[in-house]
């Protein structure tokens, strides 16, 4: 998986790993928008870092919903310096969503689905940028080709 350094356009290799207990000290609300520790034990938590590095660039919480053959992304955040128009790296969120998609694909084969409820203001963005399906409900989701496409785009 790679993300793009906005200034140079260079691709940098990243990896996604489960969050460890010691990471919670680093996952401050100031830098990562949420009190992530609150999600400990409630969802699977993952971090995105450069390969071999400790600094966390993005965080994701998701829950598995086996009855629906679906993974639901509860929360996603990038570190403060990667937010908005002044961000240092692009593609962090895409990589995290693609990771959730690959987990869903691994477990649920052809029926895999990843869903989330975006903030209203970001809804169109998710539909356009990630090809999410919108059926007029709060949930947006990826399945079949759209799910495969995200994986292929962000997880070469």
């Amino acid at each position: 998986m790679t993300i793009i350094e906005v200034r140079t356009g260079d691709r940098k290799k990243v990896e996604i790993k489960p969050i460890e207990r010691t990471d919670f000290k680093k996952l401050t609300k100031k830098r990562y928008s949420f009190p992530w520790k609150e999600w400990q034990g409630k969802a699977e938590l993952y971090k995105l870092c450069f390969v071999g590095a400790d600094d966390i660039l993005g965080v994701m919480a998701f829950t598995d919903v086996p009855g629906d053959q679906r993974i639901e992304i509860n929360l996603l955040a990038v570190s403060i310096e990667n937010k908005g128009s002044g961000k240092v790296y692009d593609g962090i969120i895409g990589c995290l969503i693609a990771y959730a998609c690959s987990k869903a694909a691994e477990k649920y084969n052809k029926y895999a689905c990843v869903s989330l409820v975006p903030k209203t203001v970001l809804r169109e963005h998710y539909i356009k940028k990630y090809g999410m399906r919108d059926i007029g409900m709060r949930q947006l989701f990826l399945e079949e080709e759209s799910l495969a496409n995200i994986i292929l785009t962000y997880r070469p």
Partner: protein
Amino acid sequence: MNVKKVKNSLPVEPEYEIMVGERLSPEEYEKSVRKMNEYRKRTQENMSEKVRLTLELMSLRFKIEGCIKDKEFNPQLNFGHFLRQYVDLLNRKRKVFASEIGINEAELSQFINNHRLPNESILVRLEIHSSNSLPAIIWFRLIQKEKEYILLTNKAIRREQKKNVSNKVNISTKLQLPAY
């Protein structure tokens, strides 16, 4: 959960992304999921064979990669196990598949039942047959892992080979590094 307000205009990239669950009432959430599942049911019924195969191959690849990444090797999840899954998802008879990769059915059976490990040319044939969905290198790494496991756990080979070794080096067992 408290979340800072996002600006009204659409940002270039979403800022701190998605909040779910708590933001929907249980009724709203349930309704939303129900509608989504109804929609998915319909699309699943009309899924094309090409898309089905693509997704199943993707899934198989992730499973193999997962086994490679795992610290411990599960002997049940060996080359034969995944080859069987590959043949099954193709919906082809074993005899037909065997001929497609230039081997006979008996050889294929030996691979599937893990009575024999394939050489590199078979792995490359699997890569080509799967249109690069299952690259030779992931089969190779899986087999390496299996071989490592066999080497680590095979007591019989140690008993057998002991006969061929003489004049073992004499070291202090107290200072010896632990075995794997």
